């Protein structure tokens, strides 16, 4: 059974897979094979797809509206995630598939001195701003939660790093003149629910955050015009914060004179207001806050679970790390269950909010099983925790990752 099942899988089938509990099934003709994700208890098999415009091979989590995960081996290829492999996540099914660049306008209104209706060329005239930043879904790694929680069952591939080009949000807000009684700025995009009464997807940031000179409106991603699936023509970039705030197809900016109480701020995307957003499964009645800044993470990218390596010679380790809402201070590794930690060499610094490459070397090992752990400490001194946090939304996961390899 096991053998015949494996032969049905694509050559890159096992991405850190642990268990083997999936069931065989038939896939649509356009599927490009399948992959197993390390989702405890399953179902752990997903189709690979190349059917989405502008996308290479992606893990299909949902066709409509699209949820596409980046196959993990892409993260071994560099700190910038190519646009055609970058994860995709849409909330509502009414997604414009045709956008006229000349007709598009970004509206700025609310508690401002002057309402604005900006064309793309108006925006391109503002001073250009560029930043490398990791865009990570709030629910990245949700599928790894134990006990499992409902929602998009991502493994670790709902994240990516890009060089974003555009203008500072501050410059656009200054053009409109934010009034002194403003408290938050709300962002809306062109996507819409199928049912009119459903809550349109909108997100807000505090005014001071919106004006910090880092939050920006991007029109290009890794040097190319934004693809539609990534929010053409404009996308909000909130460096260091989870991507729920990174509004795609940004078309409307509303400056608010009172805190935003819309569903997507007040009810959805909330995390426990506890250290690490951690609560006990089943716990109720804890206070919550809107999800906000990211936490440090690090991943080995050149070693996969179950990989066999040669005994008697050093083993190269490499991977990527992010500091979260600040830079990466260090990445260390351990091969003795976390008793002793050794430094890695950090790669080129592409900016505080970018992925950072690390390289290390495991001394030659005797034959047997070895668990390799990596942990990131960010420049604020926050270290990845030993144990994974748990919360009902499946948010904020960032434990020290462990990859079990076989030395033979």
């Amino acid at each position, binding site marked *: 059974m096991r053998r015949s099942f494996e032969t049905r899988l694509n050559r890159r089938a096992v991405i850190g897979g642990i268990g083997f509990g999936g*069931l065989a*099934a038939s*896939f*649509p003709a*356009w599927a490009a094979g399948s992959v197993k994700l390390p989702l405890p*208890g*399953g*179902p*752990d098999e*997903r*189709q690979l*797809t190349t059917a*989405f*415009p*502008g996308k290479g091979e992606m893990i299909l*989590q*949902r*066709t*409509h*509206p699209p*949820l596409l995960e980046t196959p993990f081996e892409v993260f071994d290829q560099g700190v910038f995630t190519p646009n055609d492999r970058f994860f995709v996540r849409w909330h*509502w*099914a*009414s997604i*414009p*598939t*045709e*956008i*006229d*660049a*000349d*007709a*598009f*306008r970004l509206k700025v209104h609310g508690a401002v001195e002057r309402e604005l209706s900006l064309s793309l*060329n*108006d925006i*391109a*005239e503002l*001073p*250009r701003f560029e930043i490398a930043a990791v865009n990570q879904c709030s629910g990245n790694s949700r*599928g790894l939660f134990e006990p*499992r929680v*409902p929602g*998009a*069952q991502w493994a670790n591939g709902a994240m990516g790093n890009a060089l974003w*080009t555009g203008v500072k949000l501050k410059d656009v807000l200054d053009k409109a003149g934010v009034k002194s009684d403003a408290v938050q700025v709300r962002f809306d995009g*062109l996507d819409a*629910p*199928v*049912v*009119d009464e*459903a*809550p349109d997807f909108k997100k807000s940031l505090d005014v001071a955050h919106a004006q910090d000179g880092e939050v920006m409106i991007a*029109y290009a991603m890794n040097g190319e*015009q934004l*693809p*539609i699936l990534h929010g*053409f023509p404009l996308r909000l970039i909130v460096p260091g914060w989870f991507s729920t705030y990174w509004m795609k197809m940004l*078309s409307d900016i509303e400056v608010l004179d009172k805190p935003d109480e819309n569903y997507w701020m007040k*009810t959805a995307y909330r995390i426990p207001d506890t250290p690490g957003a951690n609560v006990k499964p089943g716990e109720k009645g804890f206070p919550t806050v809107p999800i906000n800044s990211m936490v440090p993470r690090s991943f080995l990218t050149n070693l996969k679970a179950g990989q066999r390596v040669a005994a008697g010679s050093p083993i190269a380790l490499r991977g990527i790390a992010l500091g979260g809402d600040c830079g990466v201070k260090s990445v260390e590794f351990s091969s003795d269950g976390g008793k002793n930690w050794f430094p890695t060499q950090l790669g080129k610094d592409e900016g505080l909010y970018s992925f950072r490459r690390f390289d290390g070397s495991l001394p030659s090992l005797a034959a047997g099983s070895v668990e390799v752990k990596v942990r990131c400490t960010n420049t604020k001194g926050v270290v990845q925790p030993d144990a994974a946090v748990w919360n009902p939304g499946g948010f904020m996961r960032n434990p020290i990752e462990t990859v079990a390899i076989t030395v033979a």
Partner: protein
Amino acid sequence: MGRILLAAIIAIGAAPAFAEGQAPKPMTFTSQKIELPQSERMFPGGPEAEAINNNCLACHSAGMVLTQPKLTKAQWTETVNKMAKVYHAPVAPEDSAAIIDYLTNLKPQP
């Protein structure tokens, strides 16, 4: 979708606003059009899948539902109620119970 149409109407008569002598190469934008793949996948099963196939597929395809981990009846009830009450999915009350039963009995599959 209405907003795009509105934007198109507003744009009539608006001149392009390229400034001369600005930064070396100002960004230029090209209109985009794509076609998204559609899923024809139905929830498997006979009559017991009728309610879920009739009520759920307009807003989302079946794949993500069928790849959820095993969830309890209480968890599925919460999800189906959220779809109906918060997201205003037009689910008839008599169909809700059938959908919850279907999902609770679902054997997770790829």
